[in-house]
C-alpha cells in the first residue's frame, strides 16, 4: 500500500478580501508543515495513527486554526476543546487492542495542550479506558498520568479569537485580559468559525 495523508483546517464562508499575500504564506506554510510532519512518519514506515497525530499537532500549535492554541471561545469566554480518533483496524503492533476498539472522542477539554495527543493516549490505553466517549477533567488527568502535557487554560487565548468572541456578543473588545503574544494582523479568514 502506498501511504497518503490528507488534512483540513476550517471550512465555511472564508473572506477572500482578508487574505493578504503575507497571511496566505502563513496559512500555506502551516498546512505544508503539517503535511510534511505526517508524511515523515509514513515514509519511515510509521503507522497512520502516529501520522495523523503528527500532522494535527502542527495545526493545534498554530494560532491561525480553531484548535489547541487559537481555539475559539464559548459564550462564557472559555475554551472547551474536543478531539477524536478512529482507526479502520487496530494498530498492527498492538495485539492487545481488540478489533472492537474502533475509536474514541473527548469533549469539554480545557487543559490538554494537544487534544490530539490526549485521544491517542486514551486510545492506546484500552485496559482502563473502555469507553467510546469521555468528557471533562478525568480524561485529561488520565492522559497527564501517561506523560501528556496539561497547560493553564490561558495558554489557548489569542487576541484574534478573543476579539471575535467579544464582537460576536456585542461586547467591548478592550481591555484585553492578557497581553497579546500573537500577531494581531493574523485575523483568521473564517470569522466566527462554525466548528
Amino acid at each position, binding site marked *: *500500500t502506498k*501511504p*497518503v*495523508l*490528507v*488534512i*483540513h*483546517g*476550517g*471550512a*465555511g*464562508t*472564508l473572506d*477572500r478580501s482578508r487574505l493578504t499575500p503575507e497571511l496566505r504564506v502563513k496559512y*500555506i506554510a502551516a*498546512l505544508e508543515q*503539517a*503535511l*510534511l510532519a*505526517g*508524511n515523515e512518519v*509514513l*515514509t519511515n*514506515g510509521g*503507522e497512520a*495513527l502516529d*501520522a*495523523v497525530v503528527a*500532522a*494535527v499537532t502542527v*495545526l493545534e500549535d498554530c494560532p491561525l486554526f*480553531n484548535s489547541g492554541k487559537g481555539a*475559539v*471561545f*464559548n*459564550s*462564557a469566554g*472559555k*475554551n*472547551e*476543546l*474536543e*478531539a*477524536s*480518533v478512529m*482507526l*479502520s483496524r487496530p494498530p*498492527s503492533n498492538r495485539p492487545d487492542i481488540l478489533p472492537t476498539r*474502533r*475509536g474514541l*472522542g473527548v*469533549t469539554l477539554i480545557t487543559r490538554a495542550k494537544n487534544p*490530539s495527543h490526549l485521544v491517542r493516549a486514551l486510545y492506546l490505553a484500552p485496559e482502563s479506558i473502555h469507553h467510546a*466517549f469521555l468528557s471533562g477533567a478525568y480524561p485529561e488527568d488520565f492522559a497527564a498520568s501517561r506523560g501528556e502535557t496539561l497547560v493553564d487554560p490561558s495558554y489557548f487565548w489569542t487576541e484574534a*479569537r478573543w476579539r471575535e*468572541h467579544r464582537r460576536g456578543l456585542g461586547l467591548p473588545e478592550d481591555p484585553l485580559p492578557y497581553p497579546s503574544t500573537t500577531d494581531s494582523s493574523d485575523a483568521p*479568514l473564517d470569522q*466566527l*468559525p462554525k*466548528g
Partner: protein
Amino acid sequence: TVGAVALDAQGCIACLTSTGGLTNKLPGRVGDTPTMGTGFWAEEWKPTGPLARLWRKLTRKPLRVAVGVSGTGDGDYFIRLNAASTVAHRMKYLGESLEKATSAVVEDLKLNGGLGGLIAVNQDGQVALPLNCSGMYRGVIRTDGVPKTAIFDDE
C-alpha cells in the same frame, strides 16, 4: 476545526479531528468532532455481493474496502445527518465510490442548511476533499513527498 486522515503502508487508515468548536457556543455544547459517526469515522469491511465473490474467484483474495473521514463546518448539521459514517454506509450499501459518497454527503449537508467540507481516504489511497462553501484549508501529500494545499473552493 482541524483534522487528518492517513493510510499507512500496512493498509490501516486513521482519522483524527480536533477543534475549539463553534464561536460563542453555549457552555457545555458538544459538537460533531468528538461524536463518533458525525465528524469522524473509519471503517474496514469485506463486501459480500456478487462482485466481491467474482473478485475472490479471480484473485483468490477477499475484497477489502476501508475508508477514513474527518469533517469540518456546521457541526450541528453533521450530527443531525451522521455525516461521516454516512460516507462509509453509502460506499458499503450503495457501492458508491469515495468521491461520489463524500460529494453526496456534502451536498446533503448543504441542502439541509449546513456549510462545510470533508476529507477522506480509501484503501487504495484515493482521496476526496469536497466542500460546499467558499473555502476549506486543505492539503494532501503522497509518497513523492510534495505537499499540495488549497484554501478556496476554486483552487
